[in-house]
């Protein structure tokens, strides 16, 4: 009986670990090439709206990254500069970094913007939610890809 329970628990945990198709729904993630594809049903975003989101305090991108926005006086240098991001990465590569940068580098400090998070002590209003909506991710991807 004991062994059975242990085996059951093991199976469940393993299943939870490896069944990640639903984790980033509706995006499809290719873990080999580190790219995230969007299904055709999602509309292409708007770069202008993406710029607003990038500057907003909700995502707080500029707190760590340097973007070519001269009107924002202070920009952080935690992460790499966003300058020329469009020439370095494809849209799919930018998307996976937005969705969950920890797929690529587990030690990354960058928050996972499109993943239901379960870190301890998360405030109640954020529980079971993602930081960004699907449309917002698309807007941001468009804007970041336009930085060349």
């Amino acid at each position, binding site marked *: 009986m004991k062994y059975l329970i242990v085996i059951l628990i093991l199976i469940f945990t393993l299943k939870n670990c490896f069944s990640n198709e639903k984790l980033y729904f509706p995006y499809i993630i290719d873990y080999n090439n580190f790219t995230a594809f969007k299904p055709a049903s999602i509309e292409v975003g708007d770069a202008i709206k993406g710029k607003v989101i990038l500057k907003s305090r909700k995502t707080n991108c500029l*707190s760590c990254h340097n973007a070519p926005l001269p009107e924002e006086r202070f920009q952080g240098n935690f992460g790499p500069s966003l300058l020329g991001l469009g020439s370095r990465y494809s849209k799919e590569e930018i998307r996976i970094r937005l969705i969950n940068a920890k797929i690529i580098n587990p030690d990354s400090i960058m928050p996972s913007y499109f993943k239901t998070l379960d870190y301890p002590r998360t405030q109640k209003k954020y529980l079971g939610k993602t930081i960004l909506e699907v449309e917002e991710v698309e807007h941001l991807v468009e804007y970041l890809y336009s930085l060349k």
Partner: protein
Amino acid sequence: MKKLVNRRLFCGIILGLFSKYFAYKSFADGRPFRDRFQSYRQTFRVEPDKEEAERIVKNIIKGRKIVPNLVDLDIPDIAEDGNVVPVSFSINCDMSASDYPKRVHVLGLENPFPEIAIYEFFPEGGKAEVSFRCRLRKSSYLIVIADMHDGSVGMKKKYIDVMLGACS
């Protein structure tokens, strides 16, 4: 007709004239006019009003020509927090009875209430230098206007970067 020109109306007209005269006088002193009407319970306003700031500055200068090199400012380029910005200024004058600043205005152009302080000097002062600490809502110009005794006016402005909180 008789009832219209009664005592009340007469008093009203006289009072009106008086108040206009006093208002004109205080305008002539270069005081920003709003502070007299500003009761402390009705001060909630977060958004700065740029036009009002400009109007106040115009009101102080009143079209006079600005004398260069009258005001010296010593403010750090970057303020670590908008709540405490150390400001010190000095006015280049000999502080004799004919050459001293009557009033020195300090204005933060993008504060909800642009006036920060008005300093009044007297010939006994010896030196027109003041240091104090002020609040700035965000990165903006800080203006110091010296209204001299002989009617000349000096102005200096400086852009101060106010650091914003990183995470929130």
